[in-house]
C-alpha cells in the first residue's frame, strides 16, 4: 500500500467490502435490508475513509484471487500441522521445548501483507509474532532451530512470504 490518500478505487473497494460485511450479518436479500446495507456501508466507508483504506479494487484481479486461494490452502495446511505439533507437545509428558526469540527482515512492503504474514506465522507451528518493527519481525519460537536471520526467515515465513509478494506487489 504505497499510494497515500483516497482514490476512487479504494473507496469503492471499501464500500463493496463493507456491503459484503453487511450482507454477512443480515444474510437477507430483502430490499429494505439491501438498501439499508448500501447506506450503512457508504456511511461507514465515509467515516473510516481516512483511517481504514487498505487496498484498491485492483486486489480483485483474477491472478491475485488465485494466489489468495492458494494462500488459504497453504495456510490451512500449516495451521493443521501447527495443531498437531501443539497436540504432540501438550500431550507429551516430557514437554520437549527449546524456546527463544529470533528476528528476520521481510521483503513485503504492504502493511496489510505484513499483518497477514504475522498472523500466519502466529498460527503456524511453534512460532508467535512478538513484534514487527519496520520490516523486522521478532518471533517467539518454541523450538529454536537457528539464530541466523536469513535462515530463520526461510524456516518461518518461507512459503507465505512468496505468495504474499505475488498478491500485494
Amino acid at each position, binding site marked *: 500500500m504505497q499510494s497515500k490518500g483516497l482514490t476512487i478505487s479504494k473507496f469503492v473497494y471499501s464500500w463493496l467490502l463493507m456491503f459484503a*460485511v453487511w*450482507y*454477512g*450479518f443480515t*444474510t437477507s436479500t430483502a430490499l429494505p435490508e439491501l438498501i439499508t446495507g448500501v447506506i450503512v456501508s457508504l456511511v461507514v466507508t465515509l467515516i473510516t475513509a481516512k483511517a481504514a483504506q487498505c487496498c484498491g479494487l485492483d486486489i480483485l484481479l483474477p491472478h491475485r484471487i488465485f494466489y489468495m486461494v492458494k494462500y488459504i490452502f497453504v495456510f490451512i495446511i500449516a*495451521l*493443521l500441522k*501447527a*495443531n498437531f505439533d*501443539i*497436540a504432540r*507437545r*501438550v*500431550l507429551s509428558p516430557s*514437554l520437549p*521445548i*527449546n*524456546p*527463544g*526469540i*529470533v*528476528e528476520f527482515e521481510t521483503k513485503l512492503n504492504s502493511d496489510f501483507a505484513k*499483518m497477514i504474514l*504475522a*498472523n*500466519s506465522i*502466529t*498460527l*503456524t*507451528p*511453534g*512460532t*508467535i*509474532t*512478538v*513484534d514487527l*518493527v519496520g520490516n*523486522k519481525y*521478532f518471533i*517467539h519460537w*518454541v523450538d*529454536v532451530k537457528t*539464530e541466523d536471520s536469513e535462515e530463520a526467515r526461510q524456516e518461518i515465513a518461507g512459503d507465505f512470504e512468496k505468495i504474499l509478494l505475488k498478491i500485494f506487489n
Partner: protein
Amino acid sequence: MEILKYIGSFFVLLGSIFLFLGALGIYRMPDVYNRLQAGTKSSTLGAMSMLLGIGFLQPDWMVKMIVIIIFIAVSNPLSSHALARGAYRAGLSLFQKEKIDAYEKDYKDMEDKEL
C-alpha cells in the same frame, strides 16, 4: 442432506477437541509464551472448525459462520501477538533465560526513543 449432518458433526467434534487441546496447552505449558503458542493455534483452528461444522449442520447459517470464521482468523492471532508483546514489555522473562533473545536490544532502543 444427511451427508452434511455427518460432515458438520465431524467438524464440530474436531473443533471441540482442538478447543480442548488449546485449553490443555494453556494449562500445561510452562510459561506465558508457550501457553500462548498452544492456546492460539488450537483455539483458532478449533473455533473455525466448529463454526464450519455448524454451517454444515445448518446450511442457512453458513454465511454468518464464515463471517465469524474470518473474524477469528484475523483477530485471534492479532490478540495473541498483542499479548506476547504486552507480556514481554511487562517484564516477563522467557522460560529458559540462557536462550537467545533478539528482541531485548531493539525493545530497549525503542523504549529509549519513546521517552
